[in-house]
């Protein structure tokens, strides 16, 4: 392992975009190397390090700065146009779409991007690098005696019929805090009416609200939660102890599939390098590493076809609707009214 990993927790990076609250920062490769590729991402550095190291192998002239921030901060950093980042990877598809639509991404055409299925890219600007089902996790111990839910109506019935069991034991994303949570909630809301019923029912159970999937998963494992709704399946698979208590359920009425997307910042200094890294991520080798080492499912049309309940969130301008500030405010108000009963 040539790369030296520096972890700088929660640093307000003065030399970088002011608005960005950096959660983590890692350096890969020779610190003396001439060219620097700067990646801004919502994905933890630990998850991505095998990929970056594989990319750097045999390229002593390069180093990579990997900065982790929340999806909103990632969005704001690109929006500020202060530069400093070359490749921007985020799980918030709507914000990425907004950036691409508003001209903050530069086009990149290569055999690797051309090979992507149509649903996995938007123009030559936004590219999916992984597809992650959005799932329900239950604690089998906590559920003891009750049937496992398979659809949202099952879920509604289960929660409604057992309020004493689930009260305070249900968790989901706080859409006001988490970009992914907001995306999942808005997509649910537009996909089915049962979502609002579910929200209402959860609201009666004083749900716990989270900012990350990881937190929900660990609370399932400690027994603080019986059920977590809208969790990134990839994290769940990786974090749940084998043979443990947590079970991952893909709801059969529909299960959204999140596309983790990358774009090349128009204001970056190394667009070519960003393109090369992007091509690497999309290459067979990169995709295999994403699946085996990063634990994120690779882009795979076959898998989608095999699961008819899997619905990839579409990369289309519809995503822009919930980014609209008025619409966002309206949705959050409605959501709060249903769930938090404030």
């Amino acid at each position, binding site marked *: 392992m040539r790369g030296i990993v520096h972890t700088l927790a929660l640093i307000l990076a003065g030399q970088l975009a002011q608005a960005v609250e950096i959660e983590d920062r890692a350096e890969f490769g020779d610190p003396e190397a001439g060219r620097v590729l700067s990646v801004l991402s919502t994905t933890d550095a630990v998850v991505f390090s095998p990929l970056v190291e594989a990319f750097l192998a045999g390229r002593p002239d390069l180093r990579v700065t990997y900065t982790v921030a929340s999806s909103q901060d990632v969005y704001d950093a690109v929006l500020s146009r202060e530069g400093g980042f070359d490749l921007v990877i985020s799980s918030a598809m709507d914000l990425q779409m907004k950036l691409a639509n508003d*001209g903050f991404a530069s086009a990149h055409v290569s055999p690797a991007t051309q090979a992507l299925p149509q649903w996995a890219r*938007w123009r030559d600007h936004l590219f999916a690098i992984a597809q992650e089902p959005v799932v329900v996790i239950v604690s089998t111990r906590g559920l003891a005696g009750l049937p496992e839910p398979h659809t949202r109506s099952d879920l509604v019935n289960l929660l409604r019929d057992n309020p004493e069991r689930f009260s305070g034991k249900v968790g989901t994303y706080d859409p006001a805090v988490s970009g992914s949570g907001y995306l999942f909630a808005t997509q649910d809301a537009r996909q089915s009416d049962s979502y609002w019923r579910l929200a209402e029912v959860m609201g009666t159970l004083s749900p716990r609200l989270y900012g990350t999937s990881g937190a929900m998963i660990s609370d399932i494992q400690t027994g603080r939660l019986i059920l977590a709704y809208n969790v990134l399946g990839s994290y769940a698979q990786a974090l749940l102890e084998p043979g443990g208590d947590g079970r991952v359920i893909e709801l059969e009425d529909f299960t959204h599939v999140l596309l983790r997307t990358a774009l090349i910042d128009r204001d970056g200094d190394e667009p070519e390098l960003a393109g090369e890294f992007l091509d690497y991520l999309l290459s067979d080798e990169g995709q295999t590493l994403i699946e085996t080492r990063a634990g994120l499912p690779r882009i795979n049309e076959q898998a989608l076809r095999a699961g008819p309940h899997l619905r990839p969130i579409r990369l289309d301008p*519809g995503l822009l609707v*919930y980014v*609209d500030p008025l619409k966002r405010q309206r949705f959050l108000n409605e959501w709060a009214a249903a769930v938090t009963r404030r």
Partner: protein
Amino acid sequence: MSHGAQIGGSIRRRLVLQLLVVAAILSGLLYFTVRSVADQAVEATQDSILGSAAIAIAEELRGGDEALVIDIPYAAFSMLGAVGEDRVFYRILADDRTETGYADLPLPQRPLSGLSAIYYSASYDDADLRLAAVERSVLVAGANVRVVVVVGQTRTAKQAIVGRMANRAAALGLGFFAIAAALAVLTARSVLAPLANLAEAVGRRGPQDLRPVTRPVPLELVPFVAALNGFIGRLGVALSRTETFIAEAAHHIRTPLATVRAQAEIALRQAGDDRIRATLRSVIRAVDDSARSAGQLLDHATVVYRSDQRADEDIDLGALVEAVLRSFAPTAELKDIALTADRPEQPVKVWGDRLLIESALRNLVDNAIKYSPPDTEVTVELREAKLRAILRVLDRGRGLAGMDASGLTGRFKRGANVEDVIGSGLGLTIVREVARAQRGTFKISQRKGGGTCAELSIPLR
């Protein structure tokens, strides 16, 4: 094929060229029409989607006691992704104040209607946009608020579709042109076929065939055929007039000469004075000379005329030789010349004009007798060799004294060896013309052992 005709352009080439020009123009028109229709159709499609999106947003506008409620439906933007991956921009204004969206998105120049969307093009953020705008009045807290919804989209997908259509249109145009070109060539050929048929039919005619052209021809060729028939008619008349003229001229010259000769002979018989007798003898000689010349001139003219108007037939040269020798028998006898034929028993057939060949043979035999001393032999030899019939007239006369055919076959050319022998110098000229008309050859040379050998060869039938 052209037989000396001057070529001044080609109808077929001109026809093909003009058809090609027409096809090219039509192909071009096709291309531009398809292109512009595609352009309009795609623009109309994009407009209608933009309009639906704008209207869908306007439909969701709500008034109320407190504030204007704007709730953009997901489908409004989602449907904009249906045609292609174009960037989407929007702007919602209430009483000219931007409520949400892109605050600098251009507004339409024209007044808005509340009922249907209006469409316009503008440039925004370095991109060409197509935009739709609708206006709605919403009652908010008892006051009328004028809300304008603008939805715009870049035109990449439209350009891509139009580009694809244009490519297809170009292929269509090229295909159309290729087919038209092939058809043009075929058309030109079929249009010109009657002309080619006519030319072939006229060309195939025998030299004597001066009948008018009666085969049916297309309307457009009727004036040409009529003119041709008129020309053939005049030619026929002119030819028969020439024929008659030659015959009449021969008669008109020979008859008075014969009279003069007869008178001169009578006068010679009666004259006592030696000087007068000598004069009369030279008159008779001059008349003979003139008669000979006139005869040869007319023969020559006949041969030249017949060369163009040959009446070819199957001729047995053996029989012809016998006939000619028979006619010369008296002349030969006068000089005690043994006139013999040496020929194969079976007939030797050639395809030619009997009159021409006979005329040539007569002149050769005439020369052989004329330029030979009495008591010698003249032989006419007939042979078949290598697809040719060979006629040789052999004598033991004075020979050619080193002269050759080229010097002797010219018109009015006589050899230095003629002494007092009467002649006009046209005999061998006639032979040469005949040889040429029958696609044969003629040579004259010194014969081994003295005398002359004249050889005429004619292709066998």
